[in-house]
């Protein structure tokens, strides 16, 4: 071995020093393995922590903010909504099906760990262009994997997004968001009292050599040769086991049999046990002999750090143990007492009567290193100078329109979401394909509106604006269906944080997200950071993905995007400005990703949301759709396609046609109103200071854009629906 062991494990010299200081001695191999996984970027958030600390996390509805398995907000009626997003990009890049599948499994267990029943999934995805064979393989595999797992556990996948951009050819992004619901007083939060003497019960799958690639350098000589063989870095998902785990854990929580519940994800048993002990301000004795193994001969460090899927750690009083085991047996799950919480603060690990590791639990879980990494902005001069806004455009308007509508980023993602069961559990009022998904809250008239948005192109040109736009668009997607945006989760996808430009992008994105969340009243309840999305010199665009939670008081008043009848008045709420930087039009028609992203006035954005929500509540709207990628032209076309009714509009303002059609100015929405409600809508908009313009009327089989051009709804639908199937050769 050339380099010292700690470095081979990814620990710096300073980190090793810090471990020595905590222990007052040299760590042994097992302890080193435990620190290396717990102090990794993935588990400790060491590069991002100081930035994430600046996010707004408080709000009247917030029950659980960042720092626990998932955030939770109060939605009234004694109910809490639990939600969180996570990335599984790296495993998906080498085994798309299993990588994505286990990503679903992992985030579901985060929500389950709060004692909530998972009721919805969303999957923001990013790939390289589908013209490349490998990207098609990744795309098809990831989608099949998400469906394969989500469908099998009976949690509907109700939304998400798919983006295509060259930087994702080597680095696909796979994020998954899970939403759950629980009686607020039954949430398993860290505020629960956990007692010394309580038992640690490992429930679910046996432990194998999964996902311990990083620490496999510790393997004893004999195994070294086939280390790659026997310690694969990709896990295989077992959704059937997960389904049983969901039902068993919920039954345990409902019957009040537990003091605590923790998922096993990154860093496996080490993470679950050290966090549980640390939160309870206790120590723990962990008995590795009691951990059921999938194959013989696992070394202690392997059992400690294995990331085998479909496992949960329950904490229960000894007198409840028999009941706990009976519930697990009923669901056909293995359950084993693998340790005990003890007074003090030490986590000691015993194997064969011998103590193989003994460290302060807190030092693993809460005292990881924190870095303020150097930052420096990359040069923007070149891409800014190339701003496409005042380009001379030689393309015919109709061709430009069809090109934008048929661009893979804009085109229908039906091919994707038809592979997802979006109906199971019976709560899906609006599934994928609209703006936000709407899921009923059983036993009430309320519904949740859910949307995810990431704006990689904008983030590339201006990370602050990119992040703020992502929040604004996600909130707008929720508002257009009539829901009030109430909170967010996020997944922050970036390159290597050890590069100052990436760190700067990260800091700017967090600042943008924080400002937008403050202005829109949507606190951050949790999230996930995914760094190192780069290979060679190609990093992904800085892409914070926002998962938005909105609330509708009466789901019967929700608004859909389709123009479903003729004779409706079409309005544009908000204003269009000459800003084409980072637009779909600039990329697809002019062939460049350059310029400045559109400006964002967060006060205006908030005002628009108020108008949309109020208009829905007063039942003024027949249709409503957010105006974003592809601009007004695409928004109108999507309304027409969804409702199978055309329109005739005139284009407002004194700007070139391609600006009115394709600019992606923020804070806009297209709405349709019955003519007897038009004046009420105008009055409402006026009251909130939201500019509006009347565009025209719905009706007929054609979409008529002023004197510029017209396209039949059928032709547009063909382009919109056939793009993705066409690209993957179907």
């Amino acid at each position: 071995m050339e380099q010292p062991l700690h470095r081979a494990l990814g620990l710096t010299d300073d980190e090793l020093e810090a471990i020595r200081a905590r222990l007052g001695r040299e760590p042994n191999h097992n302890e080193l393995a435990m620190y290396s996984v717990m102090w990794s970027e993935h588990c400790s958030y060491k590069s991002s922590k100081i930035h994430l600390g600046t996010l707004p996390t408080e709000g009247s509805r917030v029950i659980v903010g960042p720092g626990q398995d998932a955030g939770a907000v109060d939605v009234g009626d004694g109910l809490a909504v639990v939600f969180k997003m996570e990335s599984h990009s790296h495993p998906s890049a080498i085994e798309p099906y299993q990588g994505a599948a286990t990503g679903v499994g992992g985030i579901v267990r985060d929500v389950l760990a709060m004692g909530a029943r998972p009721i919805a999934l969303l999957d923001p995805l990013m790939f390289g262009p589908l013209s490349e064979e490998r990207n098609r393989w990744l795309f098809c595999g990831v989608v099949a994997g998400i469906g394969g797992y989500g469908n099998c556990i009976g949690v509907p996948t109700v939304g998400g997004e798919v983006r295509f951009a060259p930087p994702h050819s080597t680095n696909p992004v796979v994020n998954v968001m899970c939403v759950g619901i629980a009686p607020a007083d039954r949430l398993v939060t860290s505020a629960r009292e956990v007692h010394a003497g309580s038992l640690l019960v490992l429930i679910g799958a046996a432990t194998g050599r999964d996902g311990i690639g990083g620490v496999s350098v510790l393997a004893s000589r004999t195994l070294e040769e086939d280390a790659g063989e026997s310690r694969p870095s990709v896990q295989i998902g077992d959704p059937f086991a997960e389904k049983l785990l969901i039902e068993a854990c919920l039954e345990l929580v409902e019957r009040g049999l537990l003091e605590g519940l923790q998922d096993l994800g990154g860093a496996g048993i080490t993470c679950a046990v050290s966090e549980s002990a640390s939160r309870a301000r206790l120590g723990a004795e962990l008995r590795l002999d009691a951990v059921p193994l999938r194959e013989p001969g696992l070394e202690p460090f392997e059992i400690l750090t294995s990331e085998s899927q479909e496992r949960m750690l329950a904490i229960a009083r000894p007198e409840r143990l028999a009941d706990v085991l009976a519930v697990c047996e009923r669901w056909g799950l293995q359950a084993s007492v693998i340790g005990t919480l003890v007074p003090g603060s030490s986590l000691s690990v015993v194997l064969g009567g011998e103590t193989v590791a003994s460290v302060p639990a807190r030092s693993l879980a809460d005292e990881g290193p924190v870095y303020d990494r150097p930052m420096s902005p990359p040069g923007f001069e070149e891409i800014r100078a190339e701003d496409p806004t005042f380009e001379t455009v030689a393309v015919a308007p109709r061709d430009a329109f069809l090109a934008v509508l048929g661009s893979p980023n804009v085109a229908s993602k039906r091919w994707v979401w038809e592979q997802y069961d979006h109906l199971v559990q019976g709560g899906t009022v609006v599934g994928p394909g609209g703006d936000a998904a709407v899921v009923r809250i059983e036993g009430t008239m309320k519904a949740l509106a859910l949307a995810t948005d990431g704006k990689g192109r904008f983030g590339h040109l201006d990370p602050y604006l990119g992040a703020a736009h992502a929040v604004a668009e996600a909130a707008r997607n929720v508002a257009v269906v009539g829901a009030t945006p109430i909170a967010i989760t996020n997944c922050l996808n970036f390159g290597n944080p050890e590069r100052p430009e990436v760190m700067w992008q990260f800091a700017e994105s967090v600042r943008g997200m924080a400002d937008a969340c403050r202005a829109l009243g949507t606190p951050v309840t949790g999230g996930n950071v995914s760094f190192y999305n780069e290979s060679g010199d190609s990093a992904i665009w800085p892409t914070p993905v926002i998962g938005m939670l909105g609330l509708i008081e009466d789901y019967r008043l929700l608004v859909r995007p389709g123009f479903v009848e003729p004779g409706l008045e079409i309005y544009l709420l908000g204003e269009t400005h000459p800003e084409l930087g980072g637009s779909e039009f600039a990329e697809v028609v002019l062939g460049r990703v350059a310029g400045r992203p559109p400006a964002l006035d967060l006060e205006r954005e908030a005002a628009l949301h108020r108008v949309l929500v109020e208009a829905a509540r007063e039942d003024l709207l027949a249709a409503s759709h957010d105006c974003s990628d592809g601009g007004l032209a695409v928004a109108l076309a999507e309304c027409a396609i969804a409702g199978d009714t055309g329109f005739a509009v005139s284009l407002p303002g004194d700007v070139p046609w391609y600006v009115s059609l394709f600019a992606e100015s923020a804070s806009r929405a297209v709405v349709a109103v019955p003519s007897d409600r038009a004046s009420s809508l105008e009055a409402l908009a006026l009251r909130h200071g939201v500019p509006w313009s009347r565009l025209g009327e719905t009706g007929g089989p054609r979409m008529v854009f002023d004197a510029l051009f017209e396209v039949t709804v059928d032709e547009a639908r063909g382009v919109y629906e056939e793009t993705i199937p066409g690209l993957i050769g179907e």
Partner: protein
Amino acid sequence: MRFHAQVVVRLKPGLLDPQGKAVEGSLPAMGWRNVSNVRVGKQIEFELEAPDERAAAAQVNDMAARLLSNPVIEVYAVELRTASAIPTDGA
């Protein structure tokens, strides 16, 4: 020459095999208590035309490695016979 190829694709030994596990778990209830290590794999058969056995073997290996399996999680085994040696089953 015409060859008959058979490729068996299995999950790598260390990996969880959920299918095998589910089958194994169901056996005792059916009265089969003496079975262990159930693993489920894929078996792909096809015919191919190639100038000689060497060329055929090279191609089948290539197909197995690049299309029929993912080396990150799977291993494969190849079997090749001249087609005349086996009865075809129709088509």
